[in-house]
């Protein structure tokens, strides 16, 4: 076969073609850096602006824009003072609430979610369509009884429970169709699609009835519930990649399922756990709508504090900035800590379809 000798490269070619495989073409490299640095600016500039705004006096904001402290404007600690000295415990309380609620609910969601994820990867479930339909019908009946007939919820719930048990034993045999693990999984994840506005009032009433409104417990349970689907979904993919031999050998050695899960699966899925934890932590740390309704004073969280800085006197940018800046810190620390556990590529593996 006839092949021409290599042509001398033009300048254009040399710019767009790498010298060798290990390097990047000069023009491409320049472009890459331009884009990456530009995006770094896009990402960091709003944060920088928040940061310096927290040191600005109102007059600096309304006369603005001022960019560089000490040169453009004389920074002042007034906003930090207001938030941490004047408000003092009024800032600290929501802050601690946020920390407690976000971290505990995340830990619970990840643990319970992992448990179910493990079960869904290793155990085959066959829930009967009939019993599910029956259950939903009975739940509907309970709702109807409570809301429409104004029956006490305890009573209607027990009626529903009794009916369901009767139903299970009496009719379940007649339903042949059953669902599989994928159906269960999709059912779980579909719960995440529901906008919180739809469910917040019933949840409010539930906690109000049980006297748990405005407690850490209420928020922890609710956050755990809304984030559970994500935990199940992500963890399932991690577990699916752990070889079956491992647990089989452990089970032959006499370990119980729970033990296998705790001592084999959890440690092996550490990177996945870290990635999932991070995502859920971020979601619960920043949640606003549910917190708004389920907390009044004692359990108020930080996003409410931030939102509240928009008063009738106009948004208090300086106070707000302080709060936003201090709100990022715990998540950053958590991210740095988790980051060490998340080895390269684990998050990608986590969401493998």
């Amino acid at each position, binding site marked *: *076969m006839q092949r021409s000798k290599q042509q001398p490269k033009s300048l254009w070619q040399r710019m767009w073609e790498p010298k060798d495989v290990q390097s990047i073409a000069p023009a491409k490299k320049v472009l890459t850096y331009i884009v990456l640095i530009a995006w770094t600016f896009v990402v960091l500039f709003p944060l920088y602006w928040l940061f310096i705004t927290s040191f600005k006096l109102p007059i600096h904001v309304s006369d603005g824009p001022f960019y560089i402290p000490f040169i453009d404007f004389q920074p002042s600690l007034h906003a930090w003072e207001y938030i941490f000295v004047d408000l003092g415990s009024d800032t600290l309380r929501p802050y601690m609430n946020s920390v407690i609620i976000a971290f505990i609910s995340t830990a619970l969601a990840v643990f319970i979610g992992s448990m179910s994820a493990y079960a869904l990867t290793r155990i085959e479930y066959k829930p009967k369509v009939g019993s599910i339909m029956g259950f939903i019908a009975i739940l509907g009946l309970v709702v109807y009884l409570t809301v429409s007939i104004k029956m006490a919820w305890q009573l209607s719930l027990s009626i529903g429970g009794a009916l369901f048990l009767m139903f299970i034993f009496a009719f379940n045999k007649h339903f042949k169709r059953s669902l599989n693990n994928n159906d269960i999984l999709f059912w779980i994840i579909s719960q995440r699609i529901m906008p919180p506005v739809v469910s917040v009032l019933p949840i409010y009433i539930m906690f109000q009835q049980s006297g748990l409104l405005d407690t850490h417990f209420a928020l922890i349970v609710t956050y755990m519930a809304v984030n559970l689907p994500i935990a199940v979904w992500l963890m399932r993919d991690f577990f699916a990649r752990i070889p079956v031999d491992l647990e089989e050998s452990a089970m032959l050695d006499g370990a119980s399922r729970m033990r296998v899960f705790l001592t084999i699966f959890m440690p092996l899925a550490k990177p996945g756990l870290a990635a999932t934890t991070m995502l859920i932590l971020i979601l619960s740390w920043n949640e606003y709508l549910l917190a708004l309704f389920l907390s009044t004073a004692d359990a108020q969280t930080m996003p409410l504090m931030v939102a509240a800085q928009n008063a009738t006197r106009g948004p208090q940018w300086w106070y707000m900035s302080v709060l936003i800046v201090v709100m990022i810190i715990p998540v950053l620390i958590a991210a740095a800590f988790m980051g060490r556990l998340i080895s390269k590529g684990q998050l990608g593996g986590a969401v493998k379809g």
Partner: protein
Amino acid sequence: MSIELKGVRKRYGSVEVVKGVDITVEDGQFLVLLGPSGCGKTTLLRMMAGLETVTEGKVYITDEDVTDVLPKYRDIAMVFQSYALYPHMTVAENIGYPLLLRKTEESAKQKAIVEAAEKVHLEPYLDRYPRQLSGGQRQRVALARAMVRRPRLFLMDEPLSNLDAKLRGHMRAELKHLQKKLGVTTVYVTHDQIEAMTLADKVAVIHNGVIQQLDTPRNIYNDPANLFVAGFVGSPQMNMIRGVIQNGRFSSVAADVHCQTMQDHSDAVMGVRPEDLTIITDTQSSQIGTIKARIYSLELTGDETIVTCSIEDKVEQAQIVVRMPPDYEEQIDAPVEIAITSERIFFFDDEQGSRLRDNSEQALVNDTAMSAMS
């Protein structure tokens, strides 16, 4: 097309993995780079492909300096250890991908795909996805993909190592057949010396980034250049016994061997292949030399029995392996006497690993090397 490496070196930071290699592969030749893992053989191959930069030295393909040429311009096909098949493409699409990139006309492309598939017996599987194929079939897809565009050069990076033993033997034959039929220059990397011996026109044994010996398989086996080559090539391994050469005799704790032409050497290693040994009864004797040993284990392979014996060495307990007829039987721990049956004994320097030769032998080696080249 020939490929030539001149003084090629590769450094990663301060670690040098290829330390000045010169190789020439003639047109149509099948060269195998043989060496243990980590010896730099894959790096060498990747430098030929252009997938690694060359720190120092030059790479020529048919006299054209391609040292700084990107892989895509080198017109090389490579088969990877993992096959690197595209999982989202069917077998046909995988094979046809190089042609797609060359914008080959559709009908010609289809023809070429079918032809390539025929050569590796894959016609029934053209519509399947790689995950639906067995290991051997995947391997053949990778081969077909490499062949389909008739490259100047085939590079293969341990292509058979993921296959089971039986399939490996089969594929080896196929590979050799195809390479000869197509006549494409091929460089093949492996750590398996049987593959090297069976496939190669020439073998380059590499260790620590340096070519230890570049020769025909026959010469590599019959005339290893040094202790490393001698030990690496051959299965079961060559037996090594440490001792002293003195007055035309090699003596060790358990061994006593004649070697009239050798000069005296105080730290010598004697190498002898298992097939050149036999266990003798008290009544027999050896012209060349004997070794005293005890039976350690017996392994019947079918056509022969591999006998492992333990001996006293100069330094430590050692083992030597003897090939015996399949009907040979003996108790474990029984003391035996092993006779050397052939003149094919090699001596090395224990420290340097270099071959110890006498003058006449030296001349002989040169002669055979010359004849092999021509």
